[in-house]
């Protein structure tokens, strides 16, 4: 009896033990399930909190347009006092470029071309050249049209830019008998495309479409279209408009923005000729159309240089409409 009772007790204890173990196993499984389920339960809450309301999206888009207008204005404030503008450009986005129709040329900028050393070199040159008195390049931004892509990843804008310039004596060789410092009217239109880099809007593409450049006392209707807008003959034309940076292209009186070539073009100060060092030939199919246009009494005003941006969903390059 004792043996039998002991056997039964042992069996019962073993059974209880197995039951407990199964219970523990079930608990383990339940616990594991909870661990997986808890984040899943939290995710909808997270998604809900991250989902932007219509109001938030609208606010964000309006803030972007304001930042872009400030950005373009800052570019030309910097241009007026000839300060570095590199930080305003989207150098870390492939295909960043500046195009100047006076030169019928695009300058494609890459991160490689804005290495720290080159940047410092340019800065040093600029600081040195800024001591040159008599330099005045004031280009204004008026009539803005700014469109932000529906996807919010890019933006496009156009401006009409009245402006004027003056260059220091000797910078702009003058024909015999003329004064060496000349004041110019310099009007242009601007087209620009923007992207965000590290949360900041930057100028990705800047295109300067010339209208006219003429000495202050000469009508734009009398300007010689073959002489960079009525200034001194092209053969003796000035270097790029910005002190300290070669035009990187043809000699020109330097229309806004494109004058002096894009930051990082590597031009040497005062050098008017081509200076595209370290740059491979450009594939024109990837660049916007750039054709010099200057007002003459027989010229037809171009309607698509640039076309003001229309609302769009996602940026797509198009040679005829991209800036």
């Amino acid at each position, binding site marked *: 009896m004792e043996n039998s009772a002991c056997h039964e007790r042992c069996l019962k*204890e073993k059974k209880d*033990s197995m039951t*407990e*173990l199964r*219970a*523990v196993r079930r*608990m*383990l499984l*339940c*616990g*594991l399930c*909870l*661990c997986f*389920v*808890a*984040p899943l*339960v*939290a*995710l909808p*809450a*997270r*998604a809900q*909190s991250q989902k932007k*309301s219509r*109001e*938030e999206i609208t*606010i964000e888009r*309006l*803030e972007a347009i*304001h930042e872009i207008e*400030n950005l373009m*204005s*800052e570019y*030309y*404030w*910097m241009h*007026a*006092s*000839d*300060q570095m503008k590199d930080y305003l450009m989207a150098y870390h986005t492939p295909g960043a470029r500046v195009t100047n129709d006076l030169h019928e040329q695009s300058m494609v900028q890459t991160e490689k071309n804005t290495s720290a050393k080159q940047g410092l070199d340019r800065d040093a040159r600029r600081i040195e050249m*800024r*001591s040159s*008195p*008599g*330099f*005045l390049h*004031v280009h*204004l*931004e008026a009539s803005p049209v700014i469109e932000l892509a529906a996807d919010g990843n890019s933006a496009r804008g156009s401006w009409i830019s*009245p402006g*004027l310039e*003056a260059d220091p*004596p000797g910078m702009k060789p003058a024909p015999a008998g003329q*004064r060496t*410092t*000349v*004041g110019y009217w310099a009007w242009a239109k601007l087209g620009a495309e923007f992207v965000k880099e590290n949360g900041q809007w930057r100028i990705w593409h800047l295109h300067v479409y010339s209208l006219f450049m003429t*000495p*202050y*006392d000469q009508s734009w209707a009398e300007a010689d279209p073959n002489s960079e807008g009525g200034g001194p003959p092209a053969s003796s034309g000035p270097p790029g408009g910005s002190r300290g940076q070669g035009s990187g292209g043809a000699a020109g009186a330097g229309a806004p923005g494109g004058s002096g070539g894009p930051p990082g073009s590597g031009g040497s100060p005062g050098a008017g000729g081509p200076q595209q060092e370290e740059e491979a030939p450009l594939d024109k199919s990837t660049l916007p159309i750039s054709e010099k246009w200057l007002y003459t009494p027989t010229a037809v005003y171009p309607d698509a240089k640039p076309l003001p941006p229309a609302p769009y969903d996602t940026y797509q390059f198009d040679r005829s409409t991209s800036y």
Partner: protein
Amino acid sequence: MEISGNSSAVRGVVLSGMMGAAALLFLFSSASAQTKPAQSGSDRQASLTLRLDRLQAVRDVQNLMSRYTYYQSAAMQDETIALFAQHTPGTRVEMLWGVYDGLDSVKKCYKLDHLQHSDLKKRAGVMQIDTLTTPIIQVAGDGKTAKGVWMSPGLDSTVVDGKPSAKWAWTKYGADFVKEDGAWKIWHLHIYGIFLTDYHKSWADGPQLKYDASYAGLIGPQMHNDRPPTTSWTFSADTVFPDDQPSIPQPYQTFDEKTAY
């Protein structure tokens, strides 16, 4: 029983551990969901309202300054004075010939040292137009103040001794703004010169008419400014364009007097 007792304890520990882990995971997930933005519903609404107010401020400030130039071109001095902060300390205007400190001086500036709207005899033949372009406007993160700069191509037409005189008058504007009773007002206004030249003369030719204290002499025999101008740059062949007149406003949280225009 001993085994059974241990199992119960183990079960309790495991169950508690698992529940604790699940709770922690839930909390972590929820917390990370709140990290950006880390706001409750009311905070989020307050943030949206502030962002909307700041966007509205950009438009209001631009309109305010455009009204200023519009009123000035028509010598509407009472309307001009109303654009300035009326009870915020430190209201100031710096004209090309001098500084007017405080609202009373600002009133003197426009009522005594400018043409008056009702003086049709003196206003005959006068057309002074400043336009505002190339704006950079920054509204403080706290939404209480704003700063802006503009480039201003303009013209100045007067009649001197019976002879008409037309000049190009290009300047720059820097201004601080403050909200008073829900409306944006000009707090500090500073006008900086670029060049002033007869319309038929090049800005590159010298000597130019100077944008400095002597400019007052072109306007009237006795001006009522409190002190001389703090800036007096005018372009000429021997000057370098200043890069800090005015300084370009950068994003900021609260107003700093050191950056005042």
